[in-house]
């Protein structure tokens, strides 16, 4: 097992380097002069009258050195010291900017993913157990339908129904203006977390159903049944456990999708997280901010995958043995 874990981590190193290269490419591809990322006419007027000042600023930020390897190596060196640079739009350090947003996104995603698991897996199991029943078709169609609707449309409809029409939930943001308490936060979390949960539950239903069907139709379940074990016991003790093992991996694989969903959900509900920051960074073409977000989400997803793989190997030791070969 130890060797497997070590091997799994070693394999990730080239990927990690790859992620830094993609981040660096994003940083360097910025075509617009990042110093000019504002269209305020008065601002322009000032900048145009001081071209030499722009040059000085460019030099200060190191934009005038050879890109590879000088700038890349300097940049990686800074990264290793935790220096991700500064946002050209807000003038704050990237670490601060992103650090301030991570808790909100983690909150939204963890609540939504938990909800998705609690909605998606039971429905997946039920539809597999009662395959071809009316319930199966209804739930399955609902899952396909929800997976076919853009997240933001679901979000807008949810706002329309629950906030604008029924007035039972707020339209967006994390807090009522002037309030800071957890109860208020919880009320504001309901809509975005539910929308994000539904979006992630839809594929989970289909995965779980397929995985459970695989197990239910396998020989040892048939054997268990033929030994006269009750239907319920077979499902709970044998099928469920074995069917869920691959789902560990699937939940991990859902994370990149969940991040994508979170980007849009945060935008719809004005949720002050990483996703909103990413969109702002992209619209303003804030190079270091875009790079920082790519880097941090990439590394987070990488770690989640390693943990999932190890978890999978722990749950099913055959995996580690097979792969170590």
């Amino acid at each position, binding site marked *: 097992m130890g060797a497997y874990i070590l091997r799994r981590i070693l394999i990730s190193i080239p990927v990690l380097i790859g992620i830094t290269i993609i981040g660096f490419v994003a940083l360097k591809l*910025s*075509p*617009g*002069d*990042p*110093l*000019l*990322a*504002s*269209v*305020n*006419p*008065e*601002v*322009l*007027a*000032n*900048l*145009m*009258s*001081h071209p030499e*000042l722009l040059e*000085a*600023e460019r030099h*200060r930020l190191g934009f005038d050195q050879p890109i590879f390897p000088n700038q890349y190596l300097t940049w990686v060196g800074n990264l290793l010291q935790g220096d991700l640079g*500064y946002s050209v*739009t*807000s*003038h*704050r*350090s990237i670490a601060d900017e992103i650090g*301030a947003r991570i808790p909100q996104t983690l909150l939204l995603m963890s609540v939504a993913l938990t909800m998705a698991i609690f909605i998606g897996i039971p429905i997946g199991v039920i539809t597999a157990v009662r395959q071809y029943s009316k319930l199966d078709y209804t739930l399955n169609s609902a899952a396909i339908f929800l997976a076919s609707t853009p997240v933001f449309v679901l979000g807008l409809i949810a*706002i329309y129904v629950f*906030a*604008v029409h029924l*007035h*039972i*939930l*707020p*339209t*967006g*943001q994390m807090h*009522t*203006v*002037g*309030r*800071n308490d957890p109860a*208020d936060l919880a*009320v*504001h979390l309901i809509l975005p977390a539910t929308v994000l949960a539904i979006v992630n539950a839809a594929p989970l239903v289909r995965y779980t159903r397929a995985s459970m069907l695989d197990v239910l139709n396998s020989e040892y379940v048939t054997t268990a049944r033929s030994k006269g074990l009750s239907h319920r016991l077979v499902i709970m003790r044998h099928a469920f456990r074995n069917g869920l093992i691959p789902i560990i991996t699937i939940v991990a694989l859902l994370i990149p999708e969940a991040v994508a969903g979170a980007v849009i959900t945060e935008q719809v509900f*004005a949720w*002050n997280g990483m996703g909103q*920051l990413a969109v702002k960074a992209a*619209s*303003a*073409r804030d190079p270091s901010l875009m790079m920082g977000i790519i880097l941090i989400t990439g590394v987070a997803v990488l770690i989640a995958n390693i943990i999932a793989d190890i978890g999978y190997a722990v749950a099913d030791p055959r995996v580690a043995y097979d792969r170590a070969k």
Partner: protein
Amino acid sequence: MKARFSALLAVVTLIAVACGGTTTSPSASSGASAAPPSAPAPSTAPSAAGPTTLRVARISDFLPSIHPVNLGTGNQELMADIVFSTLVDVDKDEVTILPDLATTWDVSPDATTYTFHLNPAAVWSDGKPVTADDVEWTIAWSAQNPTAFKQIPTNMWFNVKGGKEAAGTTTIPEGIKKIDANTVEITLAKPDATFLRRIAGAVYYILPKHKLDGLTAAQADTCPFCLGTVGETIGSGPYDFSESISAGGATFTKKTGYWKGKDSQIDTLVYKIQESNVSVGQLAAGELDLVIRVPPAEGPGLASVPGLKQLNVPGVGIFNINFNNTNTDKALRQAIAYAINRPEAIEKVLGGLATINYTIPPGFKVYDDINKYEFDLAKGKDLLAQSKWDKSKTFRLALLAEDPNFTVTAPALQQYLQALGLKVELTALPTAPYTDLIQKSNDFEAFLSFGGSEGVGWYQSSIYFDCAGLGTSQLKLPKDQCIYTPQFEAAAAVTGDAQDTILHKLALDLNDNLPEIYLWQPNYLHVYSDKLGGGFAIYPNERESFQKILDWTYSQ
């Protein structure tokens, strides 16, 4: 439950009073998120003695940060209004000069030397007095470090005698003279009768030397003072930061025993910078008391919400067409001006929520002999035929993709110009390349522009037509060909008649040459709670609105 809540409220209120009102009021917003818009604030228990919280939002995509030495946008200026003071303020008529740090001032007859007598009672948040040293430091630092101003520049400080020469040095410009601890004399390099009005803008506030001495231009991006931090960013205005600035805004608490002899009647001010859809929802839910610049189209939807008032006024920002003067000629520009049916576009596309402009900057008088370029397609076609424009060529018009002011109206302009006989191609660009293109505008014949503050007064136009500062439309013109120096002469003219003669000539010149076509000023819609009263007003140029916050009242 209700009784317990009231008891809790009473305790909180007591604490708040004891601590000098530093606690955010729970009464102002409790349960507001769940309240239906038909009853916006039933749960906001009226408690006359309780602390008041004003909840304000400004809708803008501009930078959500404060940057006291490198101020950029209206967002920051509204916040700066209440934390800092300027030498003088301006009244909501945008003309009358009011005292702020300076109680009185003397102006030399030639409008070159200004002497300010500071209020000896004025103090910073930490109790240290505001003196002539602070004024001198602020002006000298601005002049010495123009690189710090990547946003709205403090041009007027550069115009102090010796100001331009001080750039990059540590010399104090010779135009600043401390007479005594409370008296400063400022001499300008050139006469300027508009000086007082212009330094009343929120950009020109005075900063504490003892907090910032030794600051370099590079540090101006990142110093804690510069980022709007509780306890670090201190000023001489009526409020202090009580929650540091973040992407969503900031919170401010009033000072007690404020040096102007009167405390603000609003204890806490929550300031949000957010997108319009969120603000409109929160207005409807009673979560906000004031939203500046709501999209005018949202007005009717909010009209049914009780307790809200709307102020729908022509904005100071202008929607205009800028030309690349190397690609276009005067006859073509005039043809375009005739081809655009401004009344129709305003009525049919903008729902009537804009004011027509007659091609000259709106801060100018509409003189009788100004050509209004009223819609006349035949005349436009004649002029197009006279112009050097090759009709088989594509007329490339660029617009900013993110702003509805551009995306909603650009198709209308395209249609009018196609009727004129131009092959118009629209290119919508995001902000960064848009700014780039203004530098390399040979790729386009024209681009749309929105904003500016020319609507405030003719003197604000100088930044757009001033050859040294450059107007965007003047980009390709060498400095010696600049035709708009009259602006300086007008500023220098002390009497109204002399100014008017110069401005009249300038208006006619702009009107004929059309370096840019001023189309219309879209309305600004400000929505506010009827609880706001007293001297509450939103200025035409809303940047300065919060300067008079001491006179506002807020009844709960």
